[in-house]
């Protein structure tokens, strides 16, 4: 048996069914743009034309780099088309999305002492951790961080909320990418053709 052949079936199933989610760098430009927006918002108070132009450039860079990253993953890691999701998962995602909407509305209207939005983000990260059967442990760390932020979320203000969200998504995205590189190691060029029965 060739030593390079990896037959851990659980790893194969996890890698295949999650390969789309593990392309973590793809979300990077979007979140960087998400941080850039409030910074340009501050700038627009003094130089509105410059800020508008900056926003346009940042948006263009985000779109182009997302496409480039998408191509990078296809070129280096191959393409997988996911199987159709089970109806139960689709319903679950729908309920979660409605819950998100509810949390943001309640937060905005009634300003409760403990932020429901932060709690929703904590549950979002926790859900991803549970779905990955513990492989993506860093989502649990992100979830705990957001639980700790629940009482302070409102006091942070919109700019810091955006920055924290973006940092959380960028960090988990980078960790996803690193997990993908571990699950799909590079192919050795001097691989010996394994015995073919």
């Amino acid at each position, binding site marked *: *048996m*060739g030593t*390079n*052949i*990896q*037959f851990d*079936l659980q790893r*194969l*199933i996890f*890698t*295949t*069914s999650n*390969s789309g989610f593990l392309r973590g760098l793809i979300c990077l430009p979007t979140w960087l743009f998400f941080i850039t927006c409030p910074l340009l918002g501050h700038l627009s108070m003094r130089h509105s034309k410059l800020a508008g132009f900056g926003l346009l450039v940042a948006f263009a860079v985000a779109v182009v780099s997302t496409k480039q990253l998408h191509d990078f993953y296809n070129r280096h*890691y*191959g*393409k*997988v*088309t*996911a*199987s*159709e999701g089970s109806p139960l998962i689709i319903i679950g995602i729908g309920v979660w999305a409605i819950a998100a909407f509810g949390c943001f509305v309640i937060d905005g209207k009634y300003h409760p002492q403990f932020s429901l939005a932060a709690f929703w983000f904590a549950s979002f990260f926790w859900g991803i951790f549970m779905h990955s059967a513990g492989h993506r442990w860093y989502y649990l760390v992100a979830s705990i961080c957001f639980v700790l932020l629940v009482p302070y979320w409102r006091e942070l203000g919109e700019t810091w909320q955006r920055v924290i969200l973006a940092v959380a998504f960028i960090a988990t995205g980078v960790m996803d990418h690193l997990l993908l590189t571990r*699950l*799909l*190691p590079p*192919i050795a060029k001097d*691989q*010996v*053709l*394994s015995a*073919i*029965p």
Partner: protein
Amino acid sequence: MPFHSLLQPDKLIHEPARLAILTVLSSCATADFLFLQRVTGLTKGNLSVQLSKLEEANLLTITKQFVGKKPSTTVSLTERGCQALADYWRTMDQIRKHAKLARNGK
């Protein structure tokens, strides 16, 4: 358990490289050649040979096309492939159960 029952698992699927390929394809709708190569760690030559064998047995379909100027090979499991893999695991489960019973002296 009779000895011939141990020989029942489909030998075409029982081979580790082919089992790995079928397992990967059972977890997605389609996968391209590069992904299969990276995830299984098989060489290009070995992967090609194993895919051809599985295609000959009608367990998977291979679609070759050009994306721009680059060739792209996409592989997917057939209905028969899904069934064969499910049957394989059923047989393996039965063997495991019988072995457990035999070990316990029942």
